[in-house]
């Protein structure tokens, strides 16, 4: 499966290995290995089917098709596709999980709690 070709999409191919802090203001597609932290406030992260990410993730949206180990904080939504293997806590407003996805961790839906607190 290849990443969607859009002008504002940065891609990390499957032979690429990165250790450290990743931040940016465009969408990111990772099909390689990344270890560290990923901060994409206002943008989306996609972990491709070959992607192996060991990082805490902060983004607007997160789509996982591969492996992700670390906590995920998404301001909008998280999608775990059927091949996803996620070890970590997820905090988001909306989440969709396909049948077959594996999740070990907490799911915290933020929007609802915030609304309740605001009442």
């Amino acid at each position, binding site marked *: 499966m290849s990443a969607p070709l859009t002008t504002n999409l940065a891609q990390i191919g499957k032979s690429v290995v990165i250790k450290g802090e990743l931040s940016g203001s465009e969408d990111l597609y990772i099909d390689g290995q990344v270890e560290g932290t990923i901060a994409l406030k206002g943008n989306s992260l996609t972990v491709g089917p070959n992607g192996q990410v060991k990082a805490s993730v902060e983004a607007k949206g997160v789509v996982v098709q591969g492996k992700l180990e670390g906590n995920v904080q998404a301001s909008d939504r998280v999608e775990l596709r059927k091949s996803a293997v996620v070890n970590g806590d997820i905090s988001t407003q909306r*989440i969709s*999980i396909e049948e077959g996805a594996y999740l*070990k*961790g*907490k*799911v915290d839906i933020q929007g*609802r709690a915030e609304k*309740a607190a605001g009442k």
Partner: protein
Amino acid sequence: MASVSQNFMKLFRGSSSGSETTATQGSQKLTRRSSGLGELARVWDSETPLCILDVGSTSPANIRYFTERGHRIYSEDLLVSSTDPGLATKDEEGKPILDSRKFLAENLVYPAAQFDVVLCWNLPDYLDESLVRPVMGRLWSVLKPQGMLLAFFHTKDAGPDSPCYRFHIIEKDVLEMQRIVLKRESRRGPTGAVHTAVSDGFQLQRVFNNRHIETLFRDFASIKFFLARDNVREVLVVR
């Protein structure tokens, strides 16, 4: 065709022959009414946000069910975790066992008294013998006082081939059961046709009788049995 019909019958053997069970989505999913779940539903219908631990196979339906009601859910598939080859060790007599200390160092790592509800499903029936008591002990410790745990146990009439299911909550007392299949292998036969072999999921390790179940949950304050018509005993225990 024979194998298809055999598999279909196998699905039913471990579940119900009563009217409560119907096949959905081909023969892959069954629904069943659960009295234990119905009793638990009174707890999560409350306005208070709860902390719930689901130690069955990852269920999108359960995650959706609880998060829609404002509860916090933790998902941890302990059966899959127990297949880690790194857990294999030997006891003092040289018999192969799983290393329960290592297992508990890597799984169910939560502060004491964190959860209001633990959904155990049929885990004890399929978990390796060496892990059952340590895991139940850990589940006791992560439950809050008055916290509740729901578990299902096969009766001896269920038979050794009873399939292991993933449980999805679809209504307050209705579950959808989806058979767990560990892997699919496709190969091309001599005629060129592609054959897909689906290996069975987890094997039933043992059948607990009532006394075994009471012993297993002896540290809990109370235990309630619900007998179902499908060779399954539902057990609701309170810490």
